[in-house]
């Protein structure tokens, strides 16, 4: 029986190559898209799966509103880990990370050149106790207990020493000055971890830890993990932890600031500490000082929905074409029924057919997915591949193919098998197929609604990106070259800067680690008087710059002046931005005094511990964070910060300018890597996620439009075929080609228009939500909807006309004589 079903199914497919082709290609596109999306989703949700202790490991996070700014931190003070270990018996072990960014690393000895290592963490010796990373060489429990020890990953061992065995006991030089003895080699950490490290430095005797005040809420610089004992009730533990944190913050308020927690909280300020589950971090956490760019659960949902919708669109094609064609098969069904075929048997036949189509589509989809895997990985920034060797994958795929087959085939199967034999036998074959036009229309409307939503999403995302790129930012992002490792030159960087300024193509140069793109950040408390009060504090960024900074970055003054190297008192001068002026409540900020506090941690501040600064200028607000955030308060002070050097140049002969920079660099520091980037590129990188979303939305829109159009094409071909006789008669009666084309096109166009009406409010709502992520954003305007509508209508008209025109041009005699 089954064999018989299959033979007939195959024959049917081959007999109608157009419909079979449309069905298979449409479904294959849908399945391929689905497959790619689900690979991505499977990866996104697999973060920290490898860690079998993840379920009882938590990270300390905080939500702090202080001095006018509200922030969430993935980091905590150095004291919090040890405090928890001491005061909470559920804590089996704790580990702190200090992320100090990238390091220049080389083997010890002559003629070894530096390599920049990005993934470096300074960690407590308990690292391998808390995280089950496999240690290949060395003692996991004691390898990081010595002050100058380092554990490195297998790939780094192979890179620097050719093998893990050979790396043991060797020495690495960090930043040309810090000698580190390799005491362990560990297996490379998986990519799907919320943090990655290739070099682990021992935190023992770390100066920053030693100088840290013993108060919670201060010096938030350490990612802090707690490994809980087996069987700990996490909910109860969380409560307990939060209580402890409150007590500790009360102590901080009392001893550091001199007032009670209640007084502090009355001003609306607060410091809350809480615990995060490790497996939740990748998709649910987006705090300051995350160890990697995390994913976003919202995109996981959105993409799951898109995947399902695209698949549904493809299934709808199948249903529509199958039911539309049903009149042609009606006779077969009627005849089979009078031969004793049951409804179940007929459904079996049709389902076999659709499952066969689905299986062929899956095959084609696998091929398609493999072909586009490389560009797809580039797009998603992930390293995905089809898990050919996994039985589970094949099982899922087979199950999926069956399910899609059932889904796509169920409606035609029910619908067709219900045909009444007598209608057919009586020679009324066109009857049944036509009646269901209503339902088919609903499905077409559904398909096009989704397509229009995706088209609109694409338009909006790109419009927002365009807005970001062209918005005036308060600084000039183009024509600035950034040299990354400026501090590696030490004080020679200033000689380097002067040398480079000889080049007429270079207009201005500045040395500072602080840039209005991701780079160094540091915030401090500023006071309006020589005393700590509940509400005289502003927490704001303090950037150390040189006097050429403003010219190089192209920033403007609202009032006052920039720093002048000739004026000696400028060392105690400060330039604030408009946001800071507002927060301080200064109407005329020039000449106003603000204070920083520099006392021994824990001691009650005396008036002479406050250092006075005079406001000499107000710089116009510039976007020092992404456009997702409002512009926060910030100030500049003259000072040394040698992290980066930036050069504004004429914008011409870029290559020559870079060549001269490199030449000068090499002559000053032959063994330091030379690396540069452009300020505008660095700016654009902040919106990589949005660019990806935009591109993906565009691709999916394209895909859903293509699949929908395949269906529309099939339907219109079918309608044209079915109405051949009517068309013939109309032509004999004198109808024009245009008249007939529009007759055939009109019906479909109506559906597309309905789809647009449904999709518009839906997109307005969805995209409004997406845009609300941005503090600075475009308005949704009517012309965007109009554009999407016009695109959809044009595509639909073209698709349908291909068939309609053909039908309209056909010689009427032919169709009429056929009867």
């Amino acid at each position, binding site marked *: 029986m089954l064999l018989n079903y299959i033979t007939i199914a195959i*024959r049917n497919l081959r007999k109608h190559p157009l419909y079979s082709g449309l069905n298979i290609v449409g479904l294959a596109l849908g399945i391929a898209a689905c497959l790619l999306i689900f690979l991505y989703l499977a990866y996104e949700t697999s973060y920290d799966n490898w860690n079998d202790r993840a379920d009882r490991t938590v990270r300390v996070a905080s939500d702090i509103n202080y001095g006018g700014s509200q922030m969430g931190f993935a980091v905590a003070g150095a004291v919090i880990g040890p405090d928890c270990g001491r005061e909470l018996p559920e804590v089996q072990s704790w580990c702190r990370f200090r992320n100090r960014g990238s390091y220049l690393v080389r083997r010890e000895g002559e003629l070894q050149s530096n390599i920049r290592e990005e993934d470096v963490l300074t960690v407590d010796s308990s690292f391998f106790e808390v995280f089950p990373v496999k240690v290949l060489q060395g003692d996991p429990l004691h390898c990081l207990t010595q002050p100058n020890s380092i554990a490195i990953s297998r790939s780094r061992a192979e890179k620097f020493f050719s093998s893990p065995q050979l790396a043991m006991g060797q020495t690495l030089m960090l930043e040309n000055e810090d000698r580190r003895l390799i005491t362990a080699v560990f297996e490379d950490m998986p990519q799907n971890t919320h943090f990655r490290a290739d070099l682990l430095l021992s935190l023992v005797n770390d100066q920053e830890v030693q100088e840290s005040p013993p108060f919670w809420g201060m010096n938030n610089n350490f990612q802090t993990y707690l490994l809980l004992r087996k069987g700990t009730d996490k909910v109860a533990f969380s409560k307990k932890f939060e209580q402890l944190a409150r007590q500790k913050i009360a102590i901080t308020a009392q001893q550091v600031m001199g007032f009670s927690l209640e007084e502090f909280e009355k001003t609306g300020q607060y410091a809350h500490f809480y615990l995060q589950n490790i497996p939740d971090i990748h998709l649910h956490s987006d705090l300051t000082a995350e160890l990697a760019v995390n994913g976003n659960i919202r995109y996981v949902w959105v993409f799951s929905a898109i995947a399902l919708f695209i698949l549904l669109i493809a299934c709808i094609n199948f249903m529509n074409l199958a039911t539309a064609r049903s009149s042609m098969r009606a*006779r*077969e069904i009627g005849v089979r029924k009078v*031969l*004793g075929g049951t409804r179940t048997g007929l459904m079996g036949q049709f389902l076999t057919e659709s499952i066969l189509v689905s299986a062929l589509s899956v095959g084609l989809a696998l091929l398609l997915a493999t072909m586009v895997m490389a560009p797809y990985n580039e797009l998603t920034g992930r390293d995905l591949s089809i898990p050919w060797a996994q039985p589970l994958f094949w099982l899922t795929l087979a199950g999926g193919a069956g399910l899609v087959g059932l889904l796509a085939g169920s409606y035609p199967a029910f619908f067709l098998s219900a045909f009444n034999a007598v209608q057919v036998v*009586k020679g009324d074959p066109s009857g049944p197929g036509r009646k269901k036009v209503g339902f088919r229309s609903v499905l077409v409307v559904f398909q096009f609604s989704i397509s229009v939503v995706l088209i609109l999403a694409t338009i909006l995302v790109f419009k927002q990106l365009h807005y970001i790129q062209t918005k005036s930012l308060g600084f000039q992002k183009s024509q600035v070259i950034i040299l990354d490792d400026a501090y590696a030159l030490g004080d020679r960087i200033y000689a380097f800067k002067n040398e480079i300024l000889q080049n007429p193509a270079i207009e201005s140069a500045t040395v500072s680690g602080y840039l209005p793109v991701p780079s160094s950040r540091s915030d401090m408390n500023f006071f309006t008087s020589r005393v700590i009060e509940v509400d005289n504090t502003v927490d704001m960024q303090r950037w150390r710059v040189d006097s050429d900074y403003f010219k190089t970055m192209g920033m403007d003054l609202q009032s006052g002046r920039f720093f002048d190297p000739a004026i000696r008192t400028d060392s105690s001068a400060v330039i604030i931005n408009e946001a800071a002026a507002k927060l301080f409540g200064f109407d005329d900020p020039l000449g106003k005094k603000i204070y920083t506090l520099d006392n021994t941690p824990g001691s009650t501040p005396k008036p002479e511990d406050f250092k006075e600064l005079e406001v000499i200028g107000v710089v116009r607000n510039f976007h020092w964070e992404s456009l997702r955030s409002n512009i926060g308060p910030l100030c500049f002070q003259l000072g040394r910060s040698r992290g980066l050097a930036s050069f504004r140049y004429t914008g011409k002969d870029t290559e020559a300018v870079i060549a001269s920079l490199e030449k000068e660099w090499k002559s000053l520091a032959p063994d330091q890597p030379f690396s540069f980037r452009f300020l505008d590129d660095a700016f654009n990188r902040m919106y990589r996620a949005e660019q990806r979303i935009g591109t993906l939305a565009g691709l999916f829109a394209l895909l859903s439009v293509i699949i929908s159009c395949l269906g529309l094409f099939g339907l219109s071909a079918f309608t044209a075929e079915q109405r051949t006789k009517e068309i013939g008669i109309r032509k004999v009666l004198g109808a024009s080609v245009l008249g007939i084309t529009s007759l055939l096109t009109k019906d479909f166009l109506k559906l597309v228009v309905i789809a647009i009406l449904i999709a518009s409010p839906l997109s307005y709502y969805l995209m409004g939500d997406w845009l609300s992520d941005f503090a600075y954003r475009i308005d949704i305007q009517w012309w965007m909807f109009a554009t999407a509508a016009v695109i959809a209508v044009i595509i639909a008209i073209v698709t349908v006309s291909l068939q309609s025109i053909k039908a309209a041009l056909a010689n009427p005699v032919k169709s009429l004589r056929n009867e």
Partner: protein
Amino acid sequence: MIELKDIERYFQTGSLKTYVLRYVTAKILEGEFVSIMGPSGAGKSTLLNIIGMLEEPTAGEYWFLGEGVHKFNERRRAEMYREYIGFVFQAYHLIDDLTVYENLEAPLIYKKVPSAERKSRIADLLDRFNIVAKKDLFPNQLSGGQQQLVGIARALIGRPKLILADEPTGNLQSQQAEEIMSIFQQLNKEEGVTIIQVTHSEENAGYGNRILNLKDGKIDA
């Protein structure tokens, strides 16, 4: 075998009822060869369809082998087609996508006849109707007469007790018509198959042993 009591059938268009059959009462015994005759539009096909359970009467009773047909559900009807009834259509109604062989096989598959027996039964009939050479051809590769031969062979292959034929020779030349009629006669005489056919031709009706005349929806005695 078949008992019709006061069968009535109308079609409703708007509020208007058009009666096609009215007060039709008839009894057909096993082994009869009945021809239904009458002018075009008299309701012959409708009557045959009712007998074939393709249509339901709007009133009246229909007993088939002592069972009330009005109680049959779709499953039971399918069973009837598999076990007792074979159809022959004027327009042949072969399945276009199946070869001659497969067209003949289809009812046997529904009857769950084992494959070896299917083969032998099909070979038998192909041989009997002289169409062995055509077994791998598709219907559209055959002449009308040949298609109808296949249609009859398909009706016979399940060894039905009753064959219903609606103008089986309506589309055929007289020579082919004769051939088919003699097959019917032979079936009726030698195998005792009950046959009910609709026909316009007196000549065809002559092959049978009884004529039902339909006029204005009633049977003329």
